């Protein structure tokens, strides 16, 4: 098993060693960097082909139908066929569109997506760049997507696109806050922003046991952050056609699609890293564990998409500002208290106290919610 465990790490150092034979060291490093980048991009593209197929299959099952089953075994080549179709389609720029912005947006939306992949630890030692501000980098880079999508909505000169673009800005800016606040719990527990250290910090117990509430807040805001159902308002088909990418076709549309699916996978991967222990796990090689966890979370996203209707824009903003942000703040405060109180008390007491604290918060929320419903009923009776 050690061979399989470190397969990719060994491969990479072997190639590096091979190059160092006839290249100066700096050149070998440079080639290795470019090689890693190429690998990540290739990985992203293959991932979306697989994820797209998986999603169609799973949602097909949810809806009592087969899903794609014509192209290739089990329809697995369907997405390849779709990609070919999209790449060969006519590339239309609307006459009224702002050409520069319109053409720039699809590129700008894809680049940050690939950049985020650099700091995600896919397995033991399998990280392109172990930044010590890894999480900060992820948040900073991924918020660039917002600008790109706003550009797409603005540049298309289409009212539906504009509405979609405006919705994106409102939604992504609002949900970044609870997302970061909930992730801060994991960062407080490890005392580091580096994704690698966060995974290392979960060698004994995954952080989901210490802060289930933080995990739920993170998952909710992550779904909203990548515009997936039930928070897919920016591209709400039944309301605003396709939102910001209404006017896009061919390869530019494919780029939006690519960014969307890769982003959805990335937030699942980050959730797996921050809360489920990343690549940590017994028996199986580390990268297999990582993908199992990431896909488990991605499965939840598919499940939501197959089940739930969409929220309205004011309800969406209300959920972020009136519910998730206060809850995340309380959670953060309580986690800080718990960590301080249980310092040097051992792992068991940390887990116990955190679970009790989380339970208390949930109980408080339930009581407040029940009270609100009760109040509403009372008002209804009197009127």
């Amino acid at each position, binding site marked *: 098993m050690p061979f399989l465990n470190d397969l990719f790490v060994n491969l990479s150092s072997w190639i590096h060693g091979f190059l160092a034979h006839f290249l100066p060291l700096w050149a070998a490093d440079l080639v290795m960097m470019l090689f890693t980048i190429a690998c990540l991009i290739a990985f992203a593209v293959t991932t979306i082909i697989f994820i797209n197929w998986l999603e169609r299959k799973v*949602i097909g099952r*949810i*809806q*009592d*139908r087969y899903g794609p089953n014509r192209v290739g075994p089990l329809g697995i080549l369907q997405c390849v066929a779709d990609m070919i179709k999209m790449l060969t389609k006519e590339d239309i720029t609307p006459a009224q569109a702002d050409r520069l912005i319109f053409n720039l947006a699809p590129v700008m939306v894809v680049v940050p997506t690939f950049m985020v992949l650099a700091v995600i630890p896919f397995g033991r030692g399998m990280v392109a760049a172990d930044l010590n501000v890894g999480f900060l980098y992820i948040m900073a880079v991924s918020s660039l997507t917002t600008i790109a999508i706003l550009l797409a909505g603005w540049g298309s000169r289409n*009212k*539906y696109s*504009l*509405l979609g673009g405006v919705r994106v800005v409102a939604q992504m800016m609002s949900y970044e806050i609870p997302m970061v606040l909930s992730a801060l719990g994991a960062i407080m527990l490890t005392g580091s922003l580096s994704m690698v250290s966060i995974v290392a910090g979960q060698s004994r117990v995954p952080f989901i046991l210490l802060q289930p509430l933080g995990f739920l807040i993170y998952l909710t805001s992550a779904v909203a952050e990548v515009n997936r*159902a*039930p928070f*897919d*308002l920016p591209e*709400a*088909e*039944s*309301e*605003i*056609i396709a939102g910001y990418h209404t006017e896009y076709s061919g390869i530019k549309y494919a780029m939006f699609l690519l960014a969307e699916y890769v982003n959805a996978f990335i937030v699942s991967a980050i959730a797996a890293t921050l809360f489920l222990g990343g690549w940590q796990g017994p028996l199986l090689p580390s990268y297999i564990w990582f993908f199992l966890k990431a896909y488990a979370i991605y499965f939840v996203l598919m499940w939501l*998409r*197959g*089940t*739930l*209707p*969409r*929220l*309205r*824009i*004011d*309800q969406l903003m209300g959920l972020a500002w009136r519910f998730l942000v206060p809850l995340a703040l309380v959670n953060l405060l309580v986690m800080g208290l718990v960590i301080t109180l249980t310092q040097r008390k051992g792992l068991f007491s940390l887990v116990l106290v955190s679970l009790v604290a989380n339970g208390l918060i949930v109980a408080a929320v339930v009581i407040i919610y029940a009270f609100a419903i009760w109040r509403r009923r009372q008002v209804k009776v009197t009127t």
Partner: protein
Amino acid sequence: MQRVETGLRTETITVNMGPQHPSTHGVFRMIVTLDGETIVDLEPVMGYLHRCQEKIGERNTYLQNIPYTDRLDYICSMSNNMAYVMAVEKLAQIEVPERAEYIRIIMVELTRIVNHAVAIGALLNDLGCFFTPMLYALEERERILDLFEMASGSRMMCNYMRFGGVRYDLPPGFMPELKSVVAALPAFIDEFERLLTENEIVLARCQNVGVLPPDMAIAYSCTGPLLRASGVNYDIRKVDSYSIYDRFDFDVVTETNCDVYDRYLVRIGEMRQSVRILEQALEQIPEGEVSVKLPRVFKPPEGDVYHRIESPKGELGFYLVSDGGTNPYRYKIRSPTFINLTVLPELCKGHKVADVVAILGSIDIVLGEVDR
């Protein structure tokens, strides 16, 4: 407090929703004036699917009109058949055999279930479900359409009813199949309800949206589930009973909150009541003739007639004027969704863009019938 002058100027935008739009259920156009996401004004534009149905009706003989009624509301062709043939029967005073009456009731109530299931599925699509409720509804609809195919030879454009009865008697094997479909329906409705009725997002999106007060509903001549969800107990099957509806025991479903959610509840309730009617009809259906012999050249006497039925979408009426010839002199259709749709601007003002499609979905329109 002093208002900060930002120098920003805001203006409303006008968006043409439709005629090509995923949520207009066909080619319907709404000119929507938006202030941000809020609806300031909405103007429905109809007529993109106008096919001169009424003029064609004057050209056709009475019998030739039956297949044209199929194409009005293409989800409930059986109800349209029934409204038209009953109008002609009233005009020519034709008695219908008892078995034919029962077959008609069975077909029309099955149509009601199909229509309501599809209406709820479409409403949920408009609310942003990724087709799951719609596909569940269509799956049940398939079984009912199979029954229609057994009886009439066609799944959607049934063209099944004739003056004085129905075209064919039920084929062997129909009744057992019908029994199994009817027996499975309550479970289907329960499943649908488990998925949707208590769903937090459905509640948030539907409650207190598109409130139609009872007086406004009456003022706009709304009928069908739209009216009953506003708390008005008005069902033509009860208030102006036709065919043999007086023999069945069923309730009129009404709700009192007048919003999109109550229209959903009324539809669910009506599906359950239709199952009740079907169960009774299955027990009572007699043997016998299914049609009467009519002269080959059918000429009803001079006069005019209006007959209305409770179609799944509301009051469907046919007004016929006969000059004693083979063709109607005037053939007028009172289509429920066209009249229900006139209330749309009132319901939408002040709501968000997302609510417009929900309200439109809750009115349950089929453009074939709106534009005729």
